[in-house]
C-alpha cells in the first residue's frame, strides 16, 4: 500500500511537472508566430516580457543613433525584427509582418495602437534573404514570377508592381 501511494504521489508530481512544462512551453510559443525564424530561437535580444513592454522605446532610441549618427551595429534594429518574426506564407515567400494575424498586428490590433513603421520600412525580410530562403525549397514555379532566376535578386516587373499597388490600396 505504502509503495503504491508513493508511486501515485510520484506520478502526481511528474504530471504536475509535465503540465507546468507544457503550459510554459505554450506560453513561450505564443509570443512568436509559428513558422518564423524566431520560433526556432531561444530568446529575442532581451527577455520576452521586457521586449513586450519596451520595444517601442528601444526602436525609437536606436533609430536616432542610426539615422543621425550612422551607427548601424545597434542591438534594436527594425530590419532584424522583421527578419526573425516574419512568417512564411504558402507560396514560398514571407507574409507581411503587419498584415492581419501576423506578429505585429496580433498585439497592436488587440491594444488598438497604430503601427506606422511599415509605411516606410519593408514589411518582409530583405531581398537577398527572400530569394535565398525561397529557393531553398526548390520549387521555382510557384512564385508568381517574382524571381527571374536562381541567382538574380527578387524583382517585380512594372506591371506586377502596379497590380500589387492596386491590391494594397484597395484594402
Amino acid at each position, binding site marked *: 500500500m505504502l509503495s503504491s501511494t508513493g508511486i501515485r504521489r510520484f506520478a502526481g508530481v511528474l504530471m504536475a511537472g509535465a503540465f507546468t512544462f507544457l503550459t510554459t512551453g505554450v506560453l513561450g510559443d505564443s509570443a512568436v508566430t509559428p513558422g518564423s525564424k524566431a520560433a526556432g530561437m531561444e530568446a529575442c535580444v532581451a527577455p520576452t516580457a521586457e521586449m513586450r513592454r519596451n520595444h517601442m522605446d528601444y526602436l525609437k532610441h536606436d*533609430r536616432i*543613433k542610426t*539615422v*543621425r*549618427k*550612422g*551607427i*548601424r*551595429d*545597434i542591438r534594436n534594429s527594425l*530590419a532584424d525584427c522583421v527578419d526573425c518574426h516574419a512568417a512564411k506564407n504558402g507560396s514560398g515567400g514571407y507574409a507581411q509582418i503587419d498584415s492581419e494575424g501576423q506578429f505585429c498586428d496580433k498585439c497592436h490590433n488587440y491594444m488598438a495602437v497604430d503601427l506606422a513603421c511599415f*509605411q*516606410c*520600412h*519593408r514589411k518582409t525580410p*530583405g*531581398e537577398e534573404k527572400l530569394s535565398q530562403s525561397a529557393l531553398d525549397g526548390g520549387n521555382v514555379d510557384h512564385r508568381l514570377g517574382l524571381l527571374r532566376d536562381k541567382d538574380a535578386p527578387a524583382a*517585380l516587373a*512594372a506591371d506586377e*508592381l*502596379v497590380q*500589387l*499597388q492596386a491590391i*494594397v*490600396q484597395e484594402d
Partner: protein
Amino acid sequence: MGKHNDQPDGKRRQFIGGTILAAGAATVAPGILLTVAQATGESQGVSSDVRYGMLIDTDKCVADCTACVDACDKENGLDLQQKPKGQSDDDWNAQRPQWVRKVQLKDRQTGDITDLPMMCQHCEFPPCVDVCPTGASFRRADGIVMVDRHTCIGCRYCMMACPYKARSFIHQNVVNQLVAAPRGKGCVESCNFCVHRIDAGKMTTACQDACAKEGHQAIVFGDLKNPESEIASILREKNSRQIRADLELNTGVRYTDL
C-alpha cells in the same frame, strides 16, 4: 598653391559664430564642463574628421547617358513608383521622385553644350536645414545632408529653400521598399550619397559605380578633408567650380570643366 575652387572665405560666419560662442560660454557657467558619454560596444558613429564630397568632370559626362540616374533609382528604390493612371507625362516628370537628374547647359553665345548630373550639393551651410521647422532636415557630422523621415512632416519648405531643386516629395503609397532605403508617402527626400553604403564601409556611390561601368568615369566620390584621397588630389590639381558659388554655401559637390 591651390587652384581656384570658389571656396568662400567664411570669415564673416566664423566671426558671428565665434561671438555667439563666446557670449554663450560667458553666460552659461564658468567651471562647468560638458562631457559626452562614449557609447560602448557599438561603433562611434560618424565623425567630422571626414567630409564626404563628390567631383564631377563635366567633360567626361555624356549627353543622353542616364546610367547614374538609373543606378540611383534602383539603389534607393525610386523605381518602385510608377506614373499613376491618368496623369500626364508633364505632371509626372514635375513631381516624380528624383535624387539625381541630368542637366544640359548651353552657352547662348558660343553654342557650347555641357552635360552634368545634378543632385543634392551637400552644402556646409544648407538652406534646407535652416528652414526645416521640425529638425528633420539635418547635416550629419561627416557632411552628408539628409532627411530624418521619422520627424519629417512633409511641409516641403526645404524644397522651396533649396537653390538646386534637389529634393522631391513622395506623393504615393510605396510598397516593397528596400531594406537599406526605407521610404514612404508624405516625406521629402533627396540624395544622401548612398549613406547605407558608406555606413557599411563601402566607399563608392551607386551613380559613381554606374558611370565607371559605362566607361565614362565622370564621378569621383571621397573624403574632401583627407589630402591623400583621390578627390582631394584632383581638386588640388584642377580648377573646379561650385554651382551658385555666390550663395557661399560651400557645397560638397564640385564640378570641373564647367
